[in-house]
């Protein structure tokens, strides 16, 4: 009891500490001062009256949402004496691996830089600044020569690193036993099995209404859809983050999705936020970074070639270029196993006083990075709001998909979860694919790293991301990947090479996500 209490007070203290520096705090203060004018506030019962006022005016709800947001994002400290690295990543060998990977990436970036003799950053001449400002809304029309640039890394490079990950304390042994893991990932992390997943994802069960299933044309809307929409509108009216997160587990109606996501991520577009975005835009105009070219190349290679996202090309530049310069993103490295790469002012290599984070937000984009933003363009059209939503999605979820950590939503755990599910529940398929040299993870890895963006049809992708927000976890990506394999198992059993297996799984655009998940979790004999 005592331990829990002291844990709780520690958590409260931490959250208060964090919120004190936020905008909300100053707003609440202002509101409290302003409320003194109101007749119902009396000096004798000042504290209670102000609290009451906050409750009625909706400010308490805002505070509630902010606290809930903090709880969702920040991991709770395990032990008061734990050093900050443990918050990033408790396992030493994982930290080491991440550090080595980062060194490699930075080396690759620096060598590209020296090869092409392009500085990592330079100030733009005034003429160029003017030009860029004029073209801000149509940067996609620019066709700079990007042939010499290569993406710093692609998902398959990252996969190789994960495959070679080993826990030095864990002895696999040479003899095969029923405990041997036959997949590519060879680290012993705890992952859920189907009974546990069923408990975790209980709202996806067969007896609960779902958008993505129970809103199809054959089902009359009175059975589920109408009521669900009504509840959604109510949740939005109440402006309650926690309720919205619970609600969205059953899917979000198309018309309400943009607002619901903003509510769950606790994004409200205050003038300060718009100003902040404008400031970032100014930074982009004034300085040119090497990563800008990487971003350009990535957008041109991926999103511009997509049948549906090509329309949003300009928005992608507007978001990603600003994102690279946003130093507020650095704060997420407190709980990210990765660390922002450091660069040194020319000639001052090794001197800490001359070190800067490069890029300013500490995130080096890889091949396919722009696909994290593309689906969001479907929902948000105002650049600063789109930006905020993307940034929040990144620091809550997406960063886990390309950093090495033991977190249950980290990519390593997702890969292991995927392989374990397949090995346990589709052993024949798994064994067959392994025999023909088509390890399933080699195919599904790219889906998970991109959170299926660009592989599924947009409406299906949004239904999937609804659930990511609802459950505050990325495990559903691994479950879906396994469900896709289960769905195409018959065809996969007949292939005889990796290329053929890839061909069977090349086109996911016709898949309906929710029925697949439901069948895999709740309707398969385990």
């Amino acid at each position, binding site marked *: 009891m005592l331990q829990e209490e002291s844990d709780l007070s520690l958590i409260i203290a931490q959250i208060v500490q964090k919120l004190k520096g936020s905008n909300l705090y100053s707003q609440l203060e202002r509101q409290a001062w302003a409320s003194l004018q109101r007749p119902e506030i009396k000096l004798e019962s000042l504290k209670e009256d102000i609290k009451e006022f906050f409750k009625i005016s909706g400010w308490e709800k805002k505070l509630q949402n902010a606290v809930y947001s903090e709880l969702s994002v920040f991991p709770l400290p395990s032990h008061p004496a734990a050093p900050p690295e443990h918050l990033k990543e408790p396992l030493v060998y994982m930290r080491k691996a991440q550090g080595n990977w980062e060194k490699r990436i930075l080396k690759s970036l620096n060598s590209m830089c020296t090869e092409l003799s392009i500085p990592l950053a330079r100030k733009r001449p005034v003429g160029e600044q003017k030009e860029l400002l004029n073209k801000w809304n149509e940067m996609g*029309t620019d066709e700079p020569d990007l042939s010499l640039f290569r993406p710093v890394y692609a998902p398959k490079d990252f996969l190789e690193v994960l495959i070679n990950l080993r826990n030095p304390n864990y002895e696999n042994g040479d003899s095969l036993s029923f405990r041997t893991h036959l997949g590519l990932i060879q680290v012993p992390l705890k992952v859920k099995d189907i009974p546990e997943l069923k408990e975790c994802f209980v709202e996806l069960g067969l007896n609960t209404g779902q958008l993505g299933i129970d809103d*199809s*044309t054959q089902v009359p809307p009175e059975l589920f859809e109408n009521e669900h929409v009504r509840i959604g509108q109510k949740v939005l009216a109440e402006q309650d983050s926690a309720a919205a997160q619970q609600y969205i587990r059953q899917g979000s109606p198309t*018309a309400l999705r943009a607002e619901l996501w903003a509510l769950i991520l606790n994004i409200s577009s205050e003038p300060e936020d718009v100003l902040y975005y404008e400031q970032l835009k100014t930074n982009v105009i004034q300085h040119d970074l090497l990563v800008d070219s990487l971003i350009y190349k990535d957008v041109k290679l991926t999103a511009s070639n997509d049948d549906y996202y090509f*329309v949003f090309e*300009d928005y992608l530049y507007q978001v990603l270029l600003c994102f690279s310069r946003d130093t507020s993103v650095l704060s997420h490295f407190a709980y990210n196993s990765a660390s922002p790469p450091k660069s040194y002012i020319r000639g001052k290599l090794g001197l800490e006083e001359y070190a800067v984070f490069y890029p300013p937000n500490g995130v080096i984009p890889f091949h396919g990075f722009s696909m994290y933003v593309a689906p969001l363009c*479907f929902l948000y059209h105002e650049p600063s709001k789109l930006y905020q939503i993307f940034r929040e999605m990144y620091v809550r979820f997406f960063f886990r998909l390309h950093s090495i950590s033991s977190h249950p939503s980290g990519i390593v755990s997702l890969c292991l979860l995927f392989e374990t599910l397949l090995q346990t529940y589709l052993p024949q398929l798994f064994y067959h694919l392994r025999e023909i040299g088509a390890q399933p993870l080699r195919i599904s890895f790219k889906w998970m790293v991109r959170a299926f963006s660009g592989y599924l049809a947009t409406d299906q992708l949004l239904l999937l991301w609804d659930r990511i927000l609802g459950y505050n976890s990325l495990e559903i990506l691994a479950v879906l990947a396994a469900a896709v394999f289960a769905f195409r198992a018959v065809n996969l059993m007949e292939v005889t090479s990796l290329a053929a297996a890839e061909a069977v799984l090349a086109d996911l655009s016709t898949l309906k996500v929710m029925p697949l998940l439901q069948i895999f979790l709740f309707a398969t004999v385990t």
Partner: protein
Amino acid sequence: MSRPKNQNYKGHGLSKGKEREQRAPIRFKTALMNTLMDVLRHRPGWVEVKDEGEWDFYWCDVSWLRENFDHTYMDEHVRISHFRNHYELTRKNYMVKNLKRFRKQLEREAGKLEAARCDFFPKTFELPSEYHLFVEEFRKNPGITWIMKPVARSQGKGIFLFRRLKDITDWRKDTRNSDDQKDDIPVENYVAQRYIENPYLIGGRKFDLRVYVLVMSYIPLRAWLYRDGFARFSNTRFTLNSIDDQYVHLTNVAVQKTSPDYHPKKGSKWMLQRFRQYLTSKHGPQAVETLFRDMDNIFIKSLQSVQKVIISDKHCFELYGYDILIDQDLKPWLLEVNASPSLTASSQEDYELKTCLLEDTLHVVDMEARLTGREKRVGGFDLMWNDGPVSREEGPPDLSGMGNFVTNTHLGCVNDRKKQLRQLFCSLQVQKKASS
């Protein structure tokens, strides 16, 4: 049908009437070598005839029609893919005339409000005949942009934008004094149309919608609306500053293909389902419903306006491609109607859409005589107008104008045509067996 004009008529069709064997092959002819050929060749029981052979079904092009229709005898069951004077609807100057006349009639009969529902066509003047009327309108609205379109050309050829009268007086002089202009080449007719300056933009780009309407007859008017279609995007960002940049303003794929920005890998097209979802997530379902109702209105009114003019031959049917532009207030505008919409596929998705469209067209034309004629839906086609509005609900239509009349159109909605066709043909077979 019409008596043969001279002894050189070509007879087409089988000589026997009712004793037609069920398994007799249906002979088709077409000059087009694209998706249509694939669909026709794969249709069970259909054989191709070449050159001068007799045919039961001809997907012709309009030039053949112009030269041969009048002295061609066709048996009752024979079908041809155009109406004789379809240009009343598809040539821009005729369409404007017909619409204006229809609007006047509507105003007389049903009042100003009803007539206002015909205001989906931007103000248009035929040149050179209505030049003075045009100048009057031009002077009344200084500073707005106008678009000049040749009456009979397609694929975006010959179109330009202008804001000053000087631009077209120069052009008039050019065409008159040009040395190339010989007397036997007719001076082209153009229309000057008010350019819609506030188009709805997605991702900063302008787009228009291509929608398919199948008309089986004009008297009575029977029209079907296909659920699928697409939005065609311009490759460059929309701005009014670059009037001369043809690529910005014209969204025809034919023009976009020549734009230096055009990358063939980029589809530049969105399926209508995607477009409808996008709008719903941005504006909510009610606004989108209203928009699609307004589009239904465009289709029906445009067809009604030419109903009395078009020669409604029972052998004829026509698949129209409607081009619709949406403005920022979510009001749809009719740009033009195409009697020969492109059937060439620009991508795999496009190929599938056009294949399904043509298959369903042939189902509705029903050379195999399988349908009862009372169907409201065939594959991806919904019966939109059957000598009167068609309701989504079952039962007798509520013509009192009250109540919740919802038209039987599903543009941009789910198209589960395979399933529907299976059910339809199964039940038709059952009915046939029961009645024989």
